[in-house]
């Protein structure tokens, strides 16, 4: 019997969650916690718009049940910026104009940050492979690739 409320650690803050454990992490982040940066694009793990980092690894929050990430470190796009300073990859997205409508952008940046964490200087092939699950319907892929390259070329994406 599970009675204790679920606790999530989101962007470094611990929170008790009222939602059902079966609810998706995406809906809890967006609707209960009010962090709407992660987007709904498909709800089926096929587009990457909802990507968040779980213990540093990119995960599709739409197909992640909220009970399964209790106590783990969850980072959303809102937690990528620190103390008003953009992450190098966020800067690179602006410099490369790597967005049109911007709806994929949160997921792209979070995935890219996840990539750079483990592989600070990825080859183009490695970037493409890692990012394959993220859809940009506006077709800004070449610019996103350029943005990740740019961030990697700096300090390997390290601030």
């Amino acid at each position, binding site marked *: 019997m599970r009675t204790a409320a679920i606790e999530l650690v989101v962007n470094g803050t611990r929170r008790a969650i009222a939602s059902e454990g079966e609810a998706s992490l995406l809906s809890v982040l967006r609707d209960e916690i009010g962090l709407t940066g992660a987007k709904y*694009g*498909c709800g089926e793990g096929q587009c990457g718009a909802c990507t968040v980092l779980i213990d540093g690894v990119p995960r599709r929050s739409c197909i992640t049940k909220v009970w399964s990430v209790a106590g783990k470190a969850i980072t959303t796009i809102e937690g990528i910026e620190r103390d008003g300073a953009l992450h190098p990859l966020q800067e690179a997205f602006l410099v490369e104009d790597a967005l049109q409508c911007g*709806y994929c952008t949160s997921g792209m940046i979070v995935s890219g940050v996840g990539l750079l964490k483990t592989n600070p200087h990825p080859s183009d092939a490695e970037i493409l492979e890692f990012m394959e699950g993220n859809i940009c319907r506006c077709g800004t892929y070449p610019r996103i690739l350029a943005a990740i390259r740019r961030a990697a070329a700096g300090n390997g994406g390290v601030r």
Partner: protein
Amino acid sequence: MRRGGEVELAQDAALKRTATTANAKSPELAAVNFELERYEFGEPAVHHFELQRRDFFKAMGGGVAILVAAGRPLAAAVVAQESGGRRRRGDEDLPENIGAWLHVGEDGGITVFTGKVEIGQNIRTSLAQAVAEELRVSVASIRMNMGDTAHVPFDMGTFGSRSTPTMGLQLRRAAATAKDVLIDLAAKKWTVVRDGLVADDGRVRDPRSGRAATYAELAAGQQFAETIPEEDPLIAPAKWTVAGKSIAKVEGRDFVTGAHRYASDMVLPGMLYAKIVRPSAFGASLVSVDAKEAKAMDGVTCVVDGDFIGVAAPSEYLAGQAAKKIHAEWKSSPQPSSDGIFEYLKTHRGKGQDYDEPRPHIAGSLEAGLAAAEVKLRQNYTAAYIAHSPLEPRAAAAEWKDGALTVWTGTQRPFAVRDALAEAFHLSADRVRVLVPDMGSGYGGKHTPESAIEAARLAKAAGKPVKLVWSREEEFTWAYFRPAALIEISSGVSRDGRITAWEFHNYNSGTSGIETPYDISNQRIEFHGSDSPLRQGSYRGLAATANHFARETHMDELARAVTMDALEFRRRNLKDARLLAVLEAAAKAFGWSERKKEDGRGFGIAGGTEKGGYVAACADVRVDRASGEVKVERLLSAFECGAIVNPEHLSNQVEGAMVMGLGGALFEAIAFADGRITNPHFAQYRVPRFSDMPKTESVLVDRKDLPSAGAGETPIVGVAPAIGNAIFDATGVRLRAMPLVPDGLHVGKS
């Protein structure tokens, strides 16, 4: 009756053509007695702008306002005629037909009010930039109030690539006029002649005396409104200082930090989450429904109204649970499927459609042209239905207050959605306000009001605000599609490569880009409406994509038939200097004449023109014969759309169109049977991903001497034929169906 809109339509053949193809089968929302298809591209409501000057400034605050008359000369004439003296035109009245306005407030703040909306085409930035340029202020100081029906003048919608050319020009004029007014005010203030006064950096200066006054100081205490004259002097593009340069996206930071709120991100106090129970098939009617269990759930509102079934609950999860507990039985009838669809479209002509087919375009004599031909060719081409599938699905948040309705939604036609809501809920239009947060794109797919109506219906029943976000499956199923096409071409050519006859029939998909840009004396070009089994409507480039695919593939076939280089063959049949210029520019940048044939590698070229833009594309394709894999290695587009406003964003648009074009060219196709979409998921409906990316290049041809045309659509049209022609070059296999290789290319197998 349809005043401003009719003028727009009449002025723009492309839009008119769009309207002809817009008739659609649509799911009926019997719940609210509302026929969606009427709004697909329906007539805009007459906009009665009867604001009194003093009310206007009460709402806006004092200052200087420049209003842009919509439609200009023709519109003015029509308005005068139709209002037939009914309307008083006293000095205190402002004109009725306003396209946009610009306001310089008493604090010097500059605000632009326009019904255009941001769908990723970067119009928020480019319009601000146009105004900043004329008013000599920084782009960051311009506030853009877009698509809020309570605050902006009526607008038909953001589509048809018209936003930049028309709205950009109008606002540019308004800003130039505002600057003149401010200079006049300064001249009056200092009692000097206005000649010699300079406006820049947010102030007016008199270099003679060294005096200066900020726009705020000049606008303070004013209630000045002017409707702009026809021919205002504009700064020539060659002298543009801000607008010709690339500047960063306005509010770009909000997008990279996740702070921007799309309609689907709206949160309202006490808001519920909605889920709709959809019919089992298109056109299905409800036989019976058992919603007892759902209704019994805590905090759940359940609406069964005609064929409309929906729930609203305190969380998305609970809404989903409640919807699952509703047991509905539907009755549907057999319907055509995607197999055999082209035969169906040819044999089921225009039934149930209420528009007039345009007359065929005829020139010379086909018989004579064919008789003069040394080589004749007859081929059919097809294009599948495809989905827009914007990454942000249709979404709306609705709130009722004292019988008035406010809806936040992602739509390309805020006023049409407002009118649809007013009609659906029997309200006057001024009781409905639609706001459009910058949206997760549309590509021509977000013209209709469904999600807004559904959310509003549930909000009304619940007595609380309701948000509805369509699921991906709903988006793939209940939106509308780019029309499928069957195109038949019959042609004749002389041995020296001159086309002598050109007969072209398009079934179902439409007339955008149907006319040939080539110089052919004998032609018959005809569009035939069909009874489409799927709901269809606008899409980036619309029929121009299919028409260009067919034409430019056929051109390649003809060039081969007379053993002539594809570029040389086009040169020989082309008088249109702008098209020729982009073909040459593309060929040069691509290295067309130096290309090297290798086994399994091929090159293709294609070009065309649509909506005032000219494009040529070159493709370099590799085909692995063993696996059947087709990889587009390199895709280059040369594009010209008059004077370039912002090169960086234009390249971004052109490249985006190439990537989007790639999906429709290679593998996107909607599959359906019996009133159901059978591939309504990204796992089944393949869209371009990172690994599909060729090396993309855009070559921009800047014509500062020509007015700017829109760029959102035309660059898509060259992609499919260039790739198809390259595949033929690589393999000798001629593909005449879009998508070209949904399951790879299987040469010599099967």
